[in-house]
């Protein structure tokens, strides 16, 4: 095997944010016609590295070479012009513009100097089809699309720029399995066309399927580069987290007695056309999973239980007695004791510029204040306890929560709700985009909470997680509970099958009666 000159090389890159070293003399080389996987925990420096590659952030030291020539990218536009396009984890779509406008945002087709909307619409349709998103209308405003469709549009947009180097940063995290399949096929085709691809994902099976080369980052530095397939799962994870890799999921206790009365019960919950006649029960000490394809009503179900949705019909019972939950403040009251760990930690879970202390104590301020004034000592004590319990890595409790890594931010979100000692916890895909180590800690924490008698309703897009953590999984399809899986039935095959609603009538699946339950 010869070692040709890399298409793109970064050497000796360092970057500091304040006192925190994000990158420390890191290097990376990409070759044309190969897919390079970048592995590492959150906070390992992957995001900073690709931000430098794509011109969002300037390195403190080090050099970039493209085609053997030294380059500098002062802004994202410069990197784009050079042929480097990045699909960011935080979506870069403009909500008020149409899909077609977004795909051609930087270089629309023109006629007489003006944007040619007809051509643009036709080309957008072609790129959407190439990305496997034929179902998206090119004139639909992006703000009306669900998250998974937006991510497909994002990919179409990147392809339309005809990049020479394509960076995908967790670009498949919100996608359904079918979409991921389409995207992987597209990426393989791009590789055969001679592009260099840099692929970042927490999903090992995608990396195994795609990658030619792998580089592992840890603590701001590349610790290992190797041809794909030469290291075992265990070795890879060990290199990433730098510690022994034991069981990812804590052992499950025996199932909760069926006779135990449920603490949370829903009967016939219905909301617009997104939730249809949902009935479920969660007992103390149980972790119940919500599965199914993305966007089948799981998020809406959690929001309905938390009192965020208006016009929900049906009944919610807490400890057997019906309650009306008018909003989050009613839901978290001691009488109900419900907490919702939201999906989008940056907007719904945290106040990014505020301190770790303020973020942690917000939901529990009622219990920490006397006569409307916050008891600072009681607050500090409670906050310290949470930092210890969840092993949150922070420089202090008064630094802005925005300076923490993604995994630690997510821990703050969880800790914030634990401070009010909830009896019922609803989780909305809490491990999306966080590292293996933190995930493991979250699984352990959920199990501990359940052992203490907390009832947990857990939505995840990751089937492994549902299988590993939950006693029972309710699979949603088209706003109803399509199937309930428990014990030995709980396999990946069964989850995927029921998520696609394969077991029911295929002609009019949407109106087929729910089976099971």
């Amino acid at each position: 095997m010869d070692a040709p000159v890399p298409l793109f090389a970064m050497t000796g890159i360092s970057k500091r944010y304040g006192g925190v070293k994000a990158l420390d003399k890191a290097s990376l080389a990409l070759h044309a016609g190969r897919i390079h996987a970048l592995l590492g925990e959150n906070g390992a420096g992957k995001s900073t590295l690709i931000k430098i590659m794509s011109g969002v952030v300037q390195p403190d030291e080090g050099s970039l070479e493209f085609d053997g020539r030294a380059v500098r990218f002062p802004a994202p536009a410069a990197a784009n012009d050079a042929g480097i396009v990045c699909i960011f984890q935080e979506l870069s779509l403009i909500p008020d513009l149409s899909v077609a406008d977004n795909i051609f945002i930087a270089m629309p087709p023109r006629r007489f100097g003006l944007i040619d909307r007809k051509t643009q619409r036709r080309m957008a349709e072609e790129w959407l089809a190439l990305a496997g998103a034929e179902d998206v209308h090119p004139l639909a405003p992006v703000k009306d699309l669900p998250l998974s469709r937006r991510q497909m549009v994002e990919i179409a947009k990147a392809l339309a720029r005809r990049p020479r180097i394509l960076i995908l940063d967790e670009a498949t995290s919100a996608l359904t399995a079918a979409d991921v399949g389409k995207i992987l096929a597209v990426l393989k085709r791009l590789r055969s066309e001679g592009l260099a691809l840099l692929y970042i994902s927490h999903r090992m099976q995608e990396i195994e399927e795609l990658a030619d080369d792998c580089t592992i980052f840890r603590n701001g530095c590349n610790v290992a580069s190797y041809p794909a397939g030469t290291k075992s799962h265990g070795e890879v994870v060990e290199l990433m987290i730098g510690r022994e890799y034991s069981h990812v999921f804590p052992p499950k206790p025996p199932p909760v007695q069926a006779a135990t009365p449920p603490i949370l019960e829903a009967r016939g919950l219905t909301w617009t056309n997104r939730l249809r006649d949902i009935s479920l029960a969660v007992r103390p000490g149980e972790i119940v999973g919500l599965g199914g394809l993305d966007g089948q009503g799981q998020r809406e179900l959690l929001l309905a239980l938390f009192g965020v949705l208006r016009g929900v019909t049906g009944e919610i019972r807490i400890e057997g007695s019906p309650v009306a939950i008018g909003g989050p403040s009613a839901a978290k009251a001691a009488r109900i004791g419900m907490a919702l760990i939201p999906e989008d930690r940056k907007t719904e879970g945290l106040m990014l510029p505020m301190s770790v202390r303020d973020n942690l104590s917000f939901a529990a301020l009622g219990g920490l204040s006397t006569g409307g004034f916050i008891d600072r000592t009681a607050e500090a004590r409670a906050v310290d306890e949470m930092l210890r319990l969840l092993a949150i890595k922070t420089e202090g409790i008064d630094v802005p929560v925005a300076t923490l890594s993604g995994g630690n931010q997510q821990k703050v979100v969880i800790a914030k709700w634990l401070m009010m000692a909830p009896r019922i916890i609803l989780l909305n895909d809490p491990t999306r985009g966080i590292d293996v180590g933190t995930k493991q800690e979250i699984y352990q924490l959920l199990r501990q909470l359940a052992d203490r008698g907390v009832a947990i309703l857990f939505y995840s897009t990751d089937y492994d997680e549902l299988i590993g953590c939950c006693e029972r999984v309710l699979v949603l399809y088209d706003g109803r509970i399509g199937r309930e899986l428990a014990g030995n039935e709980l396999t990946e095959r069964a989850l995927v099958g029921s998520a696609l609603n394969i077991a029911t009538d295929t002609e009019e699946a949407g109106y087929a009666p729910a089976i099971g339950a």
Partner: protein
Amino acid sequence: MSDWRYRVAEHRSTLLAALVFVAMFAIYVGNHSAGFSANVVQTAANKGVLLAFLAIAQTFVVLTSGIDLSVGAMFILTNCLASWIVVGSAAMTALGVAGVLLAGLVCGAVNGAIVIFGRLQPIVATIASGAVYFGIALALRPNPGGDVSSDLADMLTGQLWGGIPASLVVLFAVILAIWLPFRRSSLGRAVYAVGSSEVAAYMSGVATRRAKFAAYTLSGLFAAMGGLMLTFFTYSGEASSANAATYTLNSIAAVVLGGVSLFGGTGSAVGAIFGALIFRTINDLLFVFDLDPLWQPLFLGIVLLISVCIGSVRLLRIRNRLDLFG
């Protein structure tokens, strides 16, 4: 197949503003003693066009999710300037018009530069710059007076064949020559993108600074067009602080009535024009229904409040409370 549905949805707020205006104007002429005559339309048009220019000026900045509180001052400044230089021979007059428009461009560009490079909030930057512009206007015209080429003034404020008001034609021509190309250009799209999500626009390689700069500069240009038209109507210049303040506030009201979102990213100058015409027609309606002039500001305020509420009616239909904050 359903393309037209998306196109209609895109222009819904503009169409709604147009419908409301047509309905109100019909009521107005229906109750006017002179009925639907060329003179009634001309008077209404001339009053409406002034505010329409300022509403367009405001639209550019509001689309970037900014606000321009100096449009009134730029309007007055260019009015005072025009009362000095838009005089004399045809060539001199033409040169004068160019000078006034250039002055507007410069004022707008200064606003843009302050907001972009000074990193100040638009509201603060334009309050300050507006005060400066008004100061210059006062220096130019300590007392009301001056003159303007009456040939040009009469041509642009009179009637064309068939009683069509010339001022409306000017407005129409400007929309055709500037707004429509702008809307179809990369620059225009960048302005919408910046207002909708500046971070996403930047990450997509959109020239966000250029877009904002263009928006403020165009705002100055349209304020200057308004200032020119004011001079043509009054044949003089006057540094009136009351006018500067009223027109600034009314331009914001017109933009809101015309369906341009103050959060940026949606709406159009055409909608803002109808917003301005609606706002003027309310005044006229009060007149034909013989309401005491003392009550007019109060009544206008109530109408504005109601219309803003109607604009937010969708919030009542929201089924997911989280959308309230979007």
